[in-house]
């Protein structure tokens, strides 16, 4: 378990987020943390979490194997997830997955021979209004089709980092795991990554164009018919 001092410090910082005596709550972030170091949840990572929380390795492993975001094999820098659930599938998500599978010569939850890209089919990614949707390290590429998704992975293969439709500029899976462990995005550009898309704004724009607003209100009107009691 040769984890650098920084990882140990980060582990301590995770523990104090939870009430005293409830440190076990830190297990999910800790697993993200060891994944940020190893690129997957390794045996060492499991032992580390167990040691930090004073629980058994079996208890840690029972948790790590329950959740799909914890990878059991070394994953690539780029985790490409394609939604193939019903709605995305009906709009071409399965075709996108099949095209990427052919292009990369890997199946679900497999990593390319050069170790760079891991492909997975994902369940609903909560972006059905942009179907079919693909994510790379959980940043959104909206309204995809076979051609666009092939372009995306070819750019990744060539070492470029195509800008997502919504989300932050790409960083590696290890880097994103630090944020999953609950640490702040340190890049200003990351925080500023776009979150507005046509579908997100569809209703609000339509209302604005038609001059429709919610009815006005008096923000100072009392909440209840009686006067407010002074709060303690």
């Amino acid at each position: 378990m040769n984890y650098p001092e920084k990882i140990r410090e980060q582990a301590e910082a995770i523990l104090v987020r939870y009430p005293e005596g409830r440190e076990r709550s830190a297990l999910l972030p800790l697993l993200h943390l060891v994944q940020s170091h190893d690129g997957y949840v390794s045996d060492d990572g499991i032992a580390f979490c167990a040691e930090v929380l004073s629980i058994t390795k079996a208890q840690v492993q029972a948790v790590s194997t329950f959740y799909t975001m914890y990878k059991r094999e070394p994953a690539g820098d780029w985790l490409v997830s394609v939604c193939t659930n019903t709605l995305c599938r009906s709009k071409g998500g399965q075709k996108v997955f099949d095209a990427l599978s052919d292009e990369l010569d890997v199946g679900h939850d497999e990593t390319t021979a050069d170790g760079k890209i891991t492909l997975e089919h994902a369940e609903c990614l909560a972006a059905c209004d942009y179907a079919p949707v693909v994510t790379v390290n959980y940043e959104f590429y909206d309204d995809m089709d076979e051609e666009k998704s092939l372009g995306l992975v070819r750019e990744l293969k060539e070492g470029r980092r195509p800008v997502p439709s919504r989300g932050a500029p790409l960083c590696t899976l290890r880097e994103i795991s630090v944020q999953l462990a609950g640490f702040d995005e340190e890049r200003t550009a990351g925080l500023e990554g776009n979150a507005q898309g046509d579908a997100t704004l569809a209703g609000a724009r339509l209302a604005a164009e038609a001059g429709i607003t919610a009815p006005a209100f008096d923000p100072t009107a009392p909440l209840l018919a009686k006067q407010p009691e002074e709060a303690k």
Partner: protein
Amino acid sequence: MSVTVPGPRRPREDALNKLKPVITKRWMSPGAWKLDVYEQLDGYKALRKALKYSEGDLISFMKESGHRGRGGAGFPVGMKWQFVPDDGQEHYLVVNADEGEPGTCKDLPLMMNDPHSLIEGIIIASYAIKASRAFVYVRGEAIHAARRLRNAVREAKEAGYLGKDILGSGFDLEVVIHSGAGAYICGEETALLDSLEGKRGQPRLRPPFPATHGLYNKPTCINNVGSIAAVPHIVLGGAQWWKDLGSENAAGTMIYSLSGRVKRPGQYECSLGTTLRELIELAGGMEEGHELKFFTPGGSSTPMLAADSIDVPLDFDNVAKAGSILGTTAVMIFSDQDCPVVSCWRWIKFYAHESCGKCTPCREGNYWMVRVYERLLSGRGQMGDLKLLESACKNLLGRSFCGLGDGATSCVTSSLKFFRQDYLDYIEGHKPAVLDAATIGAH
């Protein structure tokens, strides 16, 4: 049973008038996720107002507003707050931001574009239930949402809206943004609590309910993102204003998330009780060459409705009368070019994958239903298969700890009710097989 809906560029006035941009209005402002812009757009005014009232008054007010939960079950928010006992022991507010129900995509855009509204709602709700710690359990994959929420918490803390003695009120609150790790079941409130405690996300038997025995076995109030983010708006606008925004028996606005075969899928915030016909109109009509065949009113766990339900007001009571559930108003719209049997197969594969395995009916029932669907869709279906599916659903419904098992049966029973012939077509050979028997191992 198909209905063609015309798709004019500008929707008809009666449909347009259903639009009520309240929760979604700040999404148009590019910097609304930052504190300074949020404050310019009425941000944290509701908190200042709320802190002038007692905790009990706030709960009475929330009950008065008729505000119901936006996470699927529609439980009255004020009543939920009231259930948290005020007995001096530590208790918690937990926000369920584990959005993952197929079709549902309303909370992510909110957390990404207007994170402070959720934080402000959390502070007001925590004050009302006297919780000094709140957790937001964010779906792991929703990384941009978590990123902006963490930033919002940091900004709010620096400005004195979080931490010790908030705005001089004597009220203290810490908020932790906790990312999950990929498990649909953790959207179920008791599974979420186990997950937040660092365990496998498996549901708990109820009673006892989380209101008395929740996180760390302490009193806990669990609310959906949409339920809480609406709170600052309701506090500013007033109970009557919120009621008037909705329809007769359903207060407030609702974000209808339209996906599928419409020209402009997306988030449409309307009065509760807007019909599918009006929503399709707002979305520019059906896609060219597509006729409405079926839809889900609120995600894959709500029974599908056929095209003849196009004029059902989509609110809690009317959708229930029509035989479904309002759910999360994730309206997935399917056309004559989508097969209900294929749709159900893929959904059941999802439920089989996401079943936590704790309850046998859910774990085994979904596993075997996938096999039956694959037999049907590979052209090897038998007449008895439809009965088999019905029997599996009967043995699943109401026989598992949580709603995942119940939800799985929704699409199967509703599609068998409306589209039996579509199933028979595969058995009788009127439709070609869509799956290859050899590759899927159907038997």
